């Protein structure tokens, strides 16, 4: 049992470090943000392993969910070829 949990902890932390590394060196911002969301979910798992379920809940909802949406939104915004400040109503729908 302990061997299994050690293997799990080892794999989890290795995956976290690998994900963090690849998201920080990823060229495509979109991919980097997706990797960041995955990283947030692994963090939530790590909190459960550290017996901090409160933090796991907050991490899953906030870090993986809300930060992910905000980052994707910003990356989408700065991908537009030309900044078009103010004006133009694209209120579609």
């Amino acid at each position, binding site marked *: 049992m302990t061997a299994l*949990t*050690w293997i799990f*902890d*080892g794999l989890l*932390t290795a995956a*976290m*470090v690998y994900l*963090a*590394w690849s*998201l*920080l*060196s990823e060229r495509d*911002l979109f991919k*980097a*943000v997706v990797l*960041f969301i995955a*990283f947030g979910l692994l*963090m939530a798992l*790590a*909190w459960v*392993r*550290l*017996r*901090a379920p*409160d*933090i796991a809940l*907050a*991490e899953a909802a*906030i*870090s993986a969910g*809300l*930060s992910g949406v*905000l*980052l994707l*939104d*910003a*990356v989408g*915004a*700065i991908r537009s070829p*030309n*900044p078009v*400040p103010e004006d133009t109503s694209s209120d579609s729908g």
Partner: protein
Amino acid sequence: MNQPTWYALTGVILFSMGIHAFVIRTHLVRRILAFNIMGSGVFLLLVAIAHRIPGAAPDPVPHALVLTGIVVSVSFTAFGLVLLKKIYAKTGKTALIDPTESTSDQTN
């Protein structure tokens, strides 16, 4: 070496990677990502060393601090991204230091 120490060391690695990328990278989205990784490392370390107390349950005070920290870091991220969008809308740049010296089509 026990399980919390293992996670504490992971936190240290994440923090170092985050601070490295935070300084090396110039793109502001990458800096925000790096800041979040740094924060995650610090939180991991903080919660892991809360396990050092004798007895079964971990110390709740660092847990509460980390919970507060996560919410503060998301508000930092959100505000940073607002600033980034503003900088982009005004100048067309996404970095404060611009190695390529790009031309900007809209400068105020």
